[in-house]
């Protein structure tokens, strides 16, 4: 109990710490014109099939780098839209940046995976809750795209308290011609107006506008950690530490609380909600994970309040591994349904687990992300890294899993071949068109060439957020304030 209480406190401390050390807020906007010329793709067009890609040999990934300059512009979420044509990032400064994939053309086929900045806008501003004397960070916790419904794109972005629905649309015409003004904008004498002029629309340079369509506020007492769009295209849910609310996209003044795990007495609090997601096809099913390492699956058909779960996924603890840290490292930081909807993947501090929806007592697959850290948990506890929330993603066909680690390393696991690879996203070794080399961390005393010792890992460089293109082998990796986009390289 004591430990749990300490855990919550730490999290709040971390939040206020982050806020205090964001002095770059003022020049953030200035730093934001992204030089798309930095993108260079050297290799000829890729036309490889999936299987080849997943051998993870060093030549198959080539990077491109988007430096988002200022140090505190830490990217806090990355998300492809449903077609993969757009990629959105959110950062600690409350900004959303949308990248658009370069259109394919005959003479520039090699630029297949290139993404250019499409639109940037300030989604959230820092706020202060005067009633509770709480600062509300502008940091974007999550971005979720809506299925496309007309020519415009829609996305949800959320900070700790408020979810916003944004419309991103294009405009390429503007009206011209006034009655009371002439072409130079000078006012005309009303007496000279002898005819009426109807404005006409003239083509202009493409303009991308982001407009806030809805603001869903005042429904969360705790910090929102997840948002998820339902497959009925009509509702979404938002989850905070203790509650999950269900919203209709059209209604902002009302939401339904579907899960509430807040005990009557807060002293009895033993677990919090860490992530939640809707089933990709069944509009009535969702899962949420907890800090105790369990996952609950709820069916909204059964009753209006889903406090009682339908399925409960939990792996019995191995008593031999039990330690002071076992409860902390079993906390689930992310949960994702596979695209097929048949599996769920969870990420805890050291592993990624895949669960079959029909098997509740243990995961079908467990992948070690950085098991070499098991001996270093004590120092990771001391520097707070043990509370880092790593996310995990599926590839388009659910056959590969990707998740992040420290030292700008990220890991991929091929579920079919059981092979895995560690790659590094860093500016030093990823000049445009460079090819990523697999990395190895050595545990013992003998360090071979190209290996990195556990002790020399940089724990301040962590990859928490990654995204995988919904159908192709293009990945986006956020390493602090850098966004890397890699694609499989095919000759």
């Amino acid at each position, binding site marked *: 109990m004591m430990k749990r209480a300490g855990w919550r406190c730490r999290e709040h401390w971390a939040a206020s710490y982050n806020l205090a050390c964001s002095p770059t807020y003022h020049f953030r906007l200035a730093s934001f014109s992204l030089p798309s010329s930095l993108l260079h793709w050297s290799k000829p067009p890729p036309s490889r099939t999936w299987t080849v890609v997943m051998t993870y040999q060093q030549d198959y990934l080539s990077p491109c780098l988007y430096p988002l300059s200022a140090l505190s512009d830490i990217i806090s979420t990355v998300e492809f839209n449903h077609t993969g044509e757009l990629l959105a990032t959110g950062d600690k400064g409350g900004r959303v940046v949308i990248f658009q994939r370069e259109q394919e053309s005959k003479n520039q086929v090699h630029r297949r995976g290139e993404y250019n900045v499409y639109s940037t806008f300030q989604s959230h501003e820092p706020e202060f809750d005067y009633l509770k004397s709480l600062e509300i960070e502008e940091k974007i916790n999550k971005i979720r795209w809506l299925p496309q*419904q007309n020519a415009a794109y829609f996305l949800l972005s959320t900070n700790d308290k408020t979810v916003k629905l944004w419309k991103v649309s294009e405009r390429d015409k503007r*009206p011209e011609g006034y009655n009371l003004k002439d072409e130079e904008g000078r006012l005309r004498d009303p007496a000279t107006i*002898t*005819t009426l002029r*109807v*404005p*006409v629309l003239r083509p202009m340079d493409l303009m991308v506008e982001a407009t806030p369509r809805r603001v869903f506020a005042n429904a969360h007492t705790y910090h929102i950690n997840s948002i998820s769009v339902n497959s009925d*295209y009509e509702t979404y849910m938002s989850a905070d530490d203790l509650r999950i609310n269900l919203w209709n996209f059209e209604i902002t003044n009302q939401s339904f609380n579907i899960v509430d795990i807040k005990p009557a007495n807060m002293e009895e609090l033993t677990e919090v909600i860490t992530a939640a997601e809707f089933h990709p096809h069944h509009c009535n099913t969702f899962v949420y994970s907890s800090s105790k390492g369990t996952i609950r699956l709820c069916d*909204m058909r059964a009753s*209006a309040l889903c406090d009682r779960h339908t399925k409960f996924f939990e792996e019995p603890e191995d008593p031999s591994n039990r330690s002071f840290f076992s409860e902390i490292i079993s906390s689930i930081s992310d949960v994702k349904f596979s695209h097929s909807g048949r599996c769920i993947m969870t990420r805890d501090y050291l592993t990624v687990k895949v669960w079959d929806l029909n098997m509740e007592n243990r995961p079908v697959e467990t992948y070690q992300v950085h098991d070499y850290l098991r001996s270093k948990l004590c120092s990771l506890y001391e520097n707070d890294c043990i509370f880092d929330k790593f996310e995990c993603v599926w590839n388009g066909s659910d056959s590969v899993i990707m998740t992040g680690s420290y030292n700008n390393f990220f890991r991929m696991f091929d579920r079919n071949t059981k092979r895995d690879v560690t790659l590094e996203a860093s500016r030093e070794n990823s000049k445009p068109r460079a090819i990523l080399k697999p990395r190895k961390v050595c545990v013992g005393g003998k360090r071979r060439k190209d290996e990195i010792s556990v002790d020399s890992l940089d724990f301040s460089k962590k990859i928490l957020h990654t995204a995988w293109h919904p159908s192709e082998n293009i990945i986006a990796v956020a390493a602090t304030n850098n966004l890397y986009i890699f694609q499989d390289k095919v000759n």
Partner: protein
Amino acid sequence: MAGVAGPATGSGAAGGDGDDSLYPIAVLIDELRNEDVQLRLNSIKKLSTIALALGVERTRTELLPFLTDTIYDEDEVLLALAEQLGNFTGLVGGPDFAHCLLPPLESLATVEETVVRDKAVESLRQISQEHTPVALEAHFVPLVKRLASGDWFTSRTSACGLFSVCYPRASIAVKGEIRQYFRSLCSDDTPMVRRAAASKLGEFAKVLELDSVKSEIVPLFTNLASDEQDSVRLLAVEACVSIAQLLSQDDIEALVMPTLRQAAEDKSWRVRYMVADKFSELQKAVGPKITLNDLIPAFQNLLKDCEAEVRAAAAHKVKELCENLPMEGRETMIMNQILPYIKELVSDTNQHVKSALASVIMGLSTILGKENTIEHLLPLFLAQLKDECPEVRLNIISNLDCVNEVIGIRQLSQSLLPAIVELAEDAKWRVRLAIIEYMPLLAGQLGVEFFDEKLNSLCMAWLVDHVYAIREAATNNLMKLVQKFGTEWAQNTIVPKVLVMANDPNYLHRMTTLFCINALSEACGQEITTKQMLPIVLKMAGDQVANVRFNVAKSLQKIGPILDTDALQEEVKPVLQKLGQDEDMDVKYFAQEAISAVAQRLRKLDFPVKDSEEPSAPGADKNHFLRPRGPGEDTGKVLPLISRHKETEWLEWLPRRQQRQPSLGVQVQPRDQHISCT
């Protein structure tokens, strides 16, 4: 392009008038793209004026193309545009050119905002009626097809609402196509479109030939009712009502009932909720025989559903269901088949279920008659009156009149009283407010004696409640009671108690006396007002709290019309003049307001000729004194003053000096208005 607008093409409508009339139109056109949304909205709302000035041809060739591309605007502007275009046929040259309106509406029908889309569809439906059959097939049907096969689901959802208007007037070949398009939308990939199709299924069925209904609509309905998404299935329940209305009893049994039975037992509570919610409509649509065989058992299940939302929805429908049962055997059926379930709901675990039941259960007494009510329903009422949830008790009390008609209220009064007292003293002020609202009703039902004996003290206690809203409601309540029980009653029971409060040490209570006098004076009439109330008001003019003093001025203004000339001249005027010299600027202001009102009144009384003109005005009273202004009539003027009330209420704990601060800003406003009024 801009050259088109040159002088040569200016049509007759615009050219005939001089420059003077063009200028306002020119402003309107320019403001169509003003930066201020309000101005744009304003311009769009006057689109018909613009179109009229441009003439039909320029409207068609210039204005509409411009509007078609203006779909970037704010929702409210688009909504206004969609609405305007529905009535635009005359302005584009009549039915022959109605199709010119389709392009702008088509683009509006694809925007993401549902209200705009719906309005565009509504306008399209309106315009479709103005198309000739030929034009309908040449222009409107292709539009529907385009929308129905659009890439984005917004356009496909909009299409769903258009089939039923073009179908009846289309040729047989086109009819087949329309049905085909509708079929494909019913099995669209996106649930949004399937939902739109499901919600328009009933409407479309109504315009179809009966054979097609059976052969095409029913299968679609069955499919939608077993859709994988419960958000689609629940809409099929609604369609069920319209389809059942079209079919014979045998067909209903064979084609609709299997689906309906399945819906009533659906795995998803939302679908069952929908069945409960639409129960009365379903009952009427399927007729009495099927109701007895199928719906009653289904209803029983819904009343004991495991989901509280479903039980609450079903409980809401209990009365309507019973009312709609065939007269023959109704009583027995309710007693045997419904009542046992109701009895269980009275002690339900969920308060929403209980309060839903409480809001309709009293209505059963008229259906069941006196004896059954006393024997079976009364215990339920009494149990609900003792319920722990205030909402349940309130719902019972608010419907007392139904029972009163059947068994008289005496039966209930013994239980009623403790319930009322408890609600009257509830810790939540909204509950107290709710019970005050029912006091006049209760007073009417219970009679003056019972009221004096039991409830009068409650009504007086509310006058000194610590929440302003309660005191305000209590004041209005007194007025209604006096209207009910008469002036004599008021003089004996209410007025003395109210007047005593004028000496209360709390200035808020002293002000309550003034508010009560404002409310009661009219109902009590001239004599009581002059003899009993006026002296107290005048005495309070010397109060040490300025808030009380300026309320005295307001009260005097308010009761002035009820008083006779002598009282006004000799008693009111001197006091007001004294207040007009008050050191507090608020008091001075309100005293001056009152003086001018009183002076006006005195003038009118001096010249009875003017007075005789008054009665010709509608609503004027036949009383000898002028009718005092009702609260609604002078809202505009009093509004800042009301806010002043509220402000002082909020700050009641502040010492007087500080209270003055917020009023300073407000003061300017009433004075300006005062000047502009005179």
